[in-house]
């Protein structure tokens, strides 16, 4: 079979014009901005051979950084999902004075330079800061510990969850909840059986975006984390440190592993999301 025949068999007829240009543009864009840079990084890594890669990655300091980054990103994404849902709920369901202001403020972490956020959080949570001073007598130290990383990542991740859940919550018919109540369900049953299943796909999307952001976040974390090796040092910082020491191969190796981990995680979440959507057959 000729190539044209193969393509026509694979491509379903469509009323939308411009398939060729659209696919071409997409691929060119993806290549220039995503695939080529990432590919170059992977190539650099393996130019030095597999043994070098394993050697660069399997250092205790690197593994500790991965552990801190993953745990904090997961924890922060979970917190974001919880509070983002709550925030979206309040914004959609309860009209209150200043509603619009709060709604606009949700996006601030998107716009704020992350370093500014990091410095602000640090000065608040440092042992002599406003909040840090309150927590210090309780024996809780936030700034310069992994807990600080969690706070920073929650800050930058929150808008993702709010902005994905909010529109779905807005579209949720009030009548579904009324129907649920009339059929005898309590508020809790209505929430778990009617509202949550409808929100789950959006919430999962928000969670995945917050997680992805948390894995790659650099600016806000380095100020508040304290960056103690083995304790509160994150992977992106480690890469910068390697670069500053002109260890390009080491930096590329860590970057490649980071890329692989992130891809696997996001892919898994994507599948999970697909599964929940199928469950709900939307």
């Amino acid at each position, binding site marked *: 079979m000729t190539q044209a025949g193969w393509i026509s068999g694979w491509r379903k007829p469509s009323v939308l014009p411009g398939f060729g240009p659209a696919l071409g543009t997409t691929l060119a864009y993806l290549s220039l901005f995503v695939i080529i840079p990432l590919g170059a990084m992977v190539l650099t890594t393996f130019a030095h051979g597999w043994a070098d890669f394993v050697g660069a990655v399997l250092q205790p300091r690197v593994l500790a950084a991965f552990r801190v980054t993953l745990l904090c990103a997961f924890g922060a994404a979970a917190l974001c999902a919880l509070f983002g849902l709550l925030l979206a709920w309040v914004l959609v369901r309860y009209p209150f004075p200043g509603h619009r202001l709060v709604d606009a403020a949700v996006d601030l972490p998107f716009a704020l330079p992350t370093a500014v956020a990091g410095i602000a959080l640090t000065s608040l949570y440092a042992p002599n800061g406003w909040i840090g001073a309150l927590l210090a007598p309780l024996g809780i130290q936030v700034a310069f510990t992994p807990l600080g990383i969690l706070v920073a990542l929650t800050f930058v991740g929150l808008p993702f969850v709010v902005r994905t859940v909010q529109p779905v919550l807005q579209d949720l018919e009030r009548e579904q909840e*009324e129907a649920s109540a009339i059929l005898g369900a309590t508020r809790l049953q209505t929430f778990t059986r009617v509202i949550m299943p409808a929100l789950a796909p959006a919430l999962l999307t928000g969670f995945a975006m917050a997680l992805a952001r948390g894995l790659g976040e650099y600016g806000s974390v380095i100020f508040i984390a304290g960056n103690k090796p083995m304790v509160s040092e994150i992977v992106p910082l480690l890469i910068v440190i390697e670069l500053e020491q002109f260890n390009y191969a080491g930096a590329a190796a860590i970057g490649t592993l980071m890329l692989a981990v992130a891809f696997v995680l996001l892919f898994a979440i994507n599948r999970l999301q697909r599964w929940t959507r199928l469950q709900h*057959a939307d």
Partner: protein
Amino acid sequence: MTAEISIRGVTRRFGAQAALDGVDLDVRPGELLALLGPSGSGKTTLLRIIAGLEWPDSGTVMFGGQDAMERHVRERGVGFVFQHYALFRHMTVFENVAFGLRVRPRAQRLPRAEIARRVHTLLNLVQLDWLADRYPNQLSGGQRQRVALARALAIEPRVLLLDEPFGALDAKVRKELRRWLRSLHENVKVTSVFVTHDQEEALELADRVVVMANGRIEQVGTPAEVYCTPASAFVHEFLGDTNRLECRVEGGRALLADGTPIGRAEDIMGSAIAYVRPHDVTLAPAADGPGIIRHVHAVGPLAQLVVELGGVEIDVAIPADSWARLGAGRGDRVAVTVQAGTLFPQRATRGIPMQPLLPASPILSLVRNNTVYSGRPIHHPE
């Protein structure tokens, strides 16, 4: 007979606007009651107050002698069918119907197998058992409607409430479902209240009709009562086609503005509005008659005419064979007899029947009585 639901002095305001204004109503056990009115008449608000989804500003709602207001919506035991069904999109048809049985407190919950059995019985009742595993968005509008009904019936409600049950369906499906709902009600016999703005639907389906306007009840009665003896000008205009004729009553005769007499009326004087249904007007050949045929639409069993009488245009509907016998056409003159009508003198709350100028022939009155007592008034397509 004690009332299943009794509503006393229910008032509900939205801002300055009164959606319901001192409504009293009794719903009898086992009946199918229609709340009929134009949009904004307060009928849906009343239904939602009965359900417990909304609260009146004042007044009481009693269910079988008990104060329903003390009970939360989930404890009232009502079935509610929403206009847009409000099916749970992430649940199959089966799960939707089972929902009300599954959320019961553990002590009252039926065993799993018993729930499955009841759901299948209900799905058979609404003839949808073969769709049990589908999701709502895979169903047609009529099927969704029936799922919503099965879901509402699953909790064995003491009252079934339906908000514009056929509003979102196309005309043909609507007619089928209406017949089907009527026979379902005859089998299940649950006290039911439905809201509609479609007079034909209310008159065909309901045991009794409640006509509402501006947050008040205008009339309560059987379909035949509200159609044939409307309590107010509003009811007359809202139920079926009608001619609204301004006239004055002098010497026992109702006269149009130019003095053309249209009927007899005892005991009143002065200006009044006469309501005359198109099929209550008969025509007879007369070369010098007072009526002039202005427009003819004679397709189908009824000939729809516009006749000019005394300077006003009157809609007239006569059987097609009478029209053929009349042998008249557009522009011809005819004699016009108003066989029946209702006069509403100014500031009167009740209408006064208007008699024809000449006593009706025995055959005609026989036909008219038939119309009244069969409870199936003649309708004209709009």
